[in-house]
């Protein structure tokens, strides 16, 4: 009686700890059997994403009982830290579209400044995280310092580092004076100059390119089919940016260059974010140089009307889409779709076949914002 012995190649299942994940989520991986003797270079066979830890049930709660118009502002802004201004701007613009509310040009321009500085801070934070994962502490520290300087410059105007609560229906709660404009412009110019040199250095770094080029590639067609948005899609050659495609507010008057890369890998995504940060500085300086005079909010009391409205805004992680249904008493229904939501859908497919050691870099390059994606 002959018995054939098959090689014992068992796959391993692991759960990735939170420290390696972009936020509270569960990522269960099944690893393929390692091919080399020491068990290095394990590849991911399949991945399962478990969500639900950030779910606050915004849409369900509003649909169940409605929400007061003023309370809605803070609820939407507090959904997420890094994307708070994009989410709030999108929501407010949807309400303004519903209520036919005209926004003064100065308020629209200042909203643009808030949105763009948030984009810069988000992109620099992500790039700094990438540098940390690549074990480049000096570059990481430099990027974090630049981010801190721009956040601080904006905080001098808004009096808050995050979620300043400035954007309201019909305008802003606070104006900016000439000194504030001068200080913010000066800070932007200084940070931009330093960042430009840093970006050049990162883009031309062979070490960084060697590590990130070809990592977790997403082809353009895949990005379109998967409905990917923002820098992740633009890094794959999809030239879609709501600031240019669907301009609203002050973006209707400001030309924004769409930064596009073709390779769709982690390096392309990093490059897109860094160049977009530079582009945001250009837009901010242009707006501040030519800030329209006049009121910063609509005068008088706003009478909300019954109806629905939509808005599309380009957030740091891609298009934010908002649909609202309201009545004079308050918000009746809301749907807020953030840029990271479609990325979660392609994550299991993207991780399949990746080396386990690349997991952290891959997740960082996708820049998933969980509070936005699964609110």
């Amino acid at each position: 009686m002959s018995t054939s012995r098959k090689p014992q190649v068992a796959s391993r299942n692991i759960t990735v700890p939170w420290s390696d994940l972009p936020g509270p989520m569960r990522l269960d991986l099944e690893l393929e059997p390692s091919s080399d003797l020491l068990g290095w270079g394990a590849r991911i066979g399949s991945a399962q994403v478990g969500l639900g830890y950030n779910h606050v049930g915004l849409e369900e709660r509003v649909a169940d009982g409605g929400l007061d118009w003023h309370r809605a502002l803070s609820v939407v802004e507090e959904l997420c830290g890094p994307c708070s201004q994009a989410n709030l701007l999108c929501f407010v613009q949807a309400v303004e579209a519903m209520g036919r509310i005209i926004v003064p040009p100065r308020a629209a321009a200042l909203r643009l400044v808030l949105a763009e500085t948030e984009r810069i801070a988000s992109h620099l934070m992500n790039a700094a995280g990438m540098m940390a994962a690549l074990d480049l502490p000096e570059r990481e520290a430099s990027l974090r310092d630049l981010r801190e300087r721009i956040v601080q410059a904006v905080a001098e105007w808004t009096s808050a580092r995050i979620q300043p609560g400035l954007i309201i229906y019909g305008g802003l709660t606070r104006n900016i004076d000439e000194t504030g404009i001068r200080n913010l412009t000066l800070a932007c110019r200084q940070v931009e100059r330093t960042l430009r040199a840093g970006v050049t250095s990162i883009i031309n770094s062979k070490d960084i390119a060697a590590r990130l080029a070809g990592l977790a590639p997403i082809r353009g067609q895949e990005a379109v089919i998967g409905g990917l948005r923002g820098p992740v899609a633009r890094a794959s050659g999809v030239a879609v940016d709501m600031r240019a495609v669907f301009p609203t507010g002050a973006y209707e008057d400001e030309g924004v260059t769409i930064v596009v890369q073709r390779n769709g890998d982690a390096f392309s995504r990093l490059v897109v974010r860094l160049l977009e940060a530079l582009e945001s500085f250009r837009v901010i300086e242009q707006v501040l140089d030519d800030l329209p005079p006049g009121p910063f909010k609509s005068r008088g009391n706003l009478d909300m009307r019954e109806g629905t409205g939509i808005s599309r805004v380009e957030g740091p992680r891609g298009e934010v889409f908002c649909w609202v249904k309201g009545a004079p008493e308050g918000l009746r229904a809301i749907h807020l779709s953030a840029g990271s939501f479609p990325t979660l859908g392609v994550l299991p497919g993207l991780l399949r076949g990746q080396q386990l050691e690349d997991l952290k870099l891959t997740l960082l390059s996708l820049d998933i914002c969980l509070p936005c994606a699964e609110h």
Partner: protein
Amino acid sequence: MNRPNGGVPDDYYEQGDPDLHLPEYDEQPDPNNPYESDEPLNRQLASFAFIREEDEREVRLYFRDVAADEIAKAFRRSGALLISITGERALSPSPVAANAPSDGAEAELPVDPSSSDAHESRGRKRRHRKGPALRGMHSAQPAGEATLRYFYSMGELVYTVNITTVTGIIHSVAGIFPAALQSERELQTRLALLFREATANTQ
């Protein structure tokens, strides 16, 4: 390096010829009339009964008991992209559903809404946190007819397609727009809907 953009290679600013753009349409629309571009779409949708409202950059279409995948195909053929999906159940439940106990095991006795005990009891119940597995169970109780909203972008316009269904059974559009799969799963849990996979060819 003395490049005008501060050393960043010029080819990183690629505006001219990226790989992909938004879908082009066969007939170039008049830029002064954004609604002209949806003529081919209107011809495809003509076989359905619907109400159309136009509002600046948004076109709202209202359908009742139609196959969502057929509508999605019409949009796909017209070069539209799906932005997102949402939905809601009618707020007023049917009398039978309203009187039925929620899970059969714990039938709540009617309480006087004006009493403070009733308020406290409700407050405690509301503060109870549900885990991810239980999330959406409360709202998943079928209450009335469901309305699904599909948001499509086509050029500068957003089409809000409202499809109302009494049965709670909807044709899935994930075969036409794969990005819809996640949203459909979420709505299936939250609104107790059943998404039926399309069997016909998606194109």
